[in-house]
């Protein structure tokens, strides 16, 4: 994994100014890039996507750390807007970073990070500050992990993708509703949805061998365990099954600490249960159990080295195995979110719509 280190500051790869303007920041960016290219022609600016992040100033460090941990999936230009209560002027800092550890003859990728300190009064016009700073013609992704919906709304018209984490919303219904609102104007990448990806892949694979495929039409129970704050990931998982298997989504209701509901399958109803698991340490799902009308039961649980799988057939014979795969960690999930901003997942919208119908 390439290590990213700051370029030597005294050679002009860092610029900062108090009480500045978007035009001055943009000019500084251009000048720094020209100077760097003149110093070494092997330095080539990465041109993949713009990531605009809106954060509370006091939590800026935590978000910057998360952005450092995304592995290979760094945005090529990150514009970090830190929101400080009562601030009326803009301060900015521009840093060019360069990938270390390149082989002789290789190009050295550079990336730009722009930190703009803004006040609350700037948020509903944040587009006028950010617009000059994004690289034209590259996809622009907006991520606002500390709320500030007015900033996201202001930026929507210059971005193509909104990165959200629905587990941060106060309840399931508002999480799904906000995702639906955003999806009307931009492509939404939801980290809560991405946390279900390995589970969806494995459920799809488990039912893929021809002799198990016919069981898909006989599913009558689905139980999902999740970290207490990650119920929305479970609802999106239900929504995915519902949209893919053509179930009629019924309402989900809270009952005895869990959430229960039914969906209408072609042959039978499906009982859905969402159960919080206090032992689950990381956001996302803890386990899935799927039963069918013919007596087949399949379960997947987090385990060492991957997911622990168990399958019981109608005669009660049980098979256990491990589905290999390393945990991506929260840094990996965020990196995956950035990567997904360049792709389009055709299954998400259907899952979201069904989830919304279940919570209506």
């Amino acid at each position, binding site marked *: 994994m390439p290590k990213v280190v700051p370029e030597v500051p005294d050679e002009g790869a860092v610029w900062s100014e108090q009480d500045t303007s978007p035009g001055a920041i943009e000019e500084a960016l251009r000048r720094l890039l020209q100077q760097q290219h003149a110093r070494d022609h092997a330095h080539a600016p990465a041109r993949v996507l713009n990531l605009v992040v809106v954060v509370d100033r006091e939590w800026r460090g935590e978000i910057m750390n998360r952005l450092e941990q995304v592995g290979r999936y760094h945005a090529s230009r990150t514009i970090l807007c830190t929101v400080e209560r009562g601030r009326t002027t803009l301060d900015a800092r521009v840093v060019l970073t360069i990938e270390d550890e390149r082989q002789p003859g290789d190009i050295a990728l550079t990336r730009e990070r722009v930190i703009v300190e803004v006040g609350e009064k700037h948020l509903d016009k944040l587009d006028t500050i950010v617009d000059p700073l994004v690289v034209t013609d590259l996809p622009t992704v907006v991520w606002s992990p500390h709320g500030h919906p007015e900033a996201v709304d202001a930026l929507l018209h210059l971005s193509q993708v909104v990165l959200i984490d629905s587990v941060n919303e106060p309840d399931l219904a508002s999480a799904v509703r906000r995702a639906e609102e955003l999806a009307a104007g931009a492509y939404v990448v939801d980290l809560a949805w991405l946390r279900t990806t390995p589970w969806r892949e494995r459920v799809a*694979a488990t039912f893929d061998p021809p002799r198990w495929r016919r069981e898909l039409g006989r599913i009558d129970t689905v139980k999902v365990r999740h970290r207490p704050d990650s119920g929305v990931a479970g609802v999106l998982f239900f929504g995915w099954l519902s949209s893919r298997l053509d179930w009629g989504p019924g309402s989900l209701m809270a009952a005895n600490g869990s959430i229960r509901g039914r969906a209408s399958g072609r042959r039978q109803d499906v009982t859905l249960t969402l159960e919080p698991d206090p032992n689950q340490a990381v956001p996302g799902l803890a386990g899935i159990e799927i039963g069918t009308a013919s007596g087949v039961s399949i379960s997947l649980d987090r385990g060492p080295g991957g997911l622990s799988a168990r399958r019981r057939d109608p005669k009660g014979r049980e098979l256990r195995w491990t589905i290999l795969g390393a945990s991506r960690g929260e840094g990996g999930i965020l990196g995956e979110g950035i*990567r997904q901003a360049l792709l389009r*997942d055709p299954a998400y919208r259907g899952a979201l719509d069904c989830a919304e119908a279940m919570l209506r």
Partner: protein
Amino acid sequence: MAVVHEENPLVEGLERQPVHPTTLVIFGGTGDLAQRKLLPAIYNLAHEGALPEGFNLIGVSRSEMSDDEYRAVARESIKTHSRRAPDEQVLEKLLERVRYIAGTFDADSVFERLEQEIGQFDEEAGIAFNRIFYLSTAPNFFALIVKKLGERGLHKHPEADVRVVIEKPFGTRLTEALELNRQVLSVLRESQIFRIDHYLGKETVQNMLAFRFANGMFEPIWNRNFIDYVQITAAEDIGIGRRAGYYDSAGALRDLVQNHMLQLLSLLCMEPPVTFDADEVRDEKVKVLHAVEPPPPDAVVRARYTAGMAEGKEAVGYREEEGVPEDSSTETYVALRLEVDNWRWAGVPIYLRTGKRLARKVTEIAVSLKPVPHLAFEAQGSVGVQPNQIILAMQPNEGVSISLGAKIPGTRMRIRPVNMEFLYGTSFLSQSPEAYERLILDAMRGDATLFTRNDEVEAQWRIIDPILEAWEKDDRPLPTYPAGSQGPEEAASILAPGQHWRAI
């Protein structure tokens, strides 16, 4: 052959499609390729969750060792050669599914034990795993292993797919390739055979298809009306290292031209396929190979490196390399001029060159367009105006570069060439996976698009074989070139007047 009962709607939209549970058997499981490439690639697939949900690995080799000892070998190989530090838990779980069988490839007992181990995996899981037999052995064992698999009935299964991956070289002459194809096809169907050419697993090679067929701007000029000539270069700055035994019997022509470079040529020159199904793509590639005549003797130059300077150090000549006979006549450089005799390419020379110990490591395809019909600027002192070139670069920096004529700032209308560059690394977030990861996964999926079909291999040999035959009768001393240079001066003799080799 597995029978599909109905569609699986859950796979729609998934980036990673399910792969049927698979048992992978590596013949030559302790060999260099297995340790350096295959085992690390398998680990990386496991790490990313890309292996089938049921996966078993069996190593087969001559060395006597237990399952546990082989697991230790595999663990060490993965730790040393994996592109990422292994996750201990994933590695441990992967190794739990590893077995080892010791013995020679002609021993019935090896195949008897193999049948038992594979059957045991099936029985434990209650399903028939697909079988992949990966022949990572010396080429002389390929036919023998396939024959033994057939004798034991391991070449087919009523409920599972059985595939055989065959490493290069696929024969050393046309007659050998034909015979090998005959032998393996007497046991297996062509659809079961995956002849590997790891070059095709590289992202930039696959990107050639995207470049040509996903962009409307290139296809209209991709023909004899606009293209003057093409140069395909695969230059290496290193010598032969410890591969003297293999290299001295192979030489540059067999090592790179017969397979990799002719594959690049066919991808460059093929017609657009109707779909990207394996056979559609390979049908188009093989048509190109059929349109290539073996070059006449004066269109081929071979040479050998002598002592020189490489990477700032003194480098010995080829004949002084360890393990190379003093009187070796093996070529370490070859350049040839080919033509694709079809409607699109007739009359366009396509130059191929490859060599060891050249000035730089570079793999690229340079497409030179015809000059503009009239240059109005010439009279005003323009210098260096050149026809446009499109460079598809594969190593070291993957990307595409287009040379254009541009006005030099100033009061006069003077032109000089400039480059418009697209660098792969600047425009994508992720690094390319190792070619072997992609190819092993494709073999498990049954997707043969990036593997070479029997008629492709034979067509490649039909181009190369006459060159080898002519060389056998030619006892003139080989031209030489100093290590670290651009290659032999004689290489210029195959170029048409007014053309020159691009600097390596």
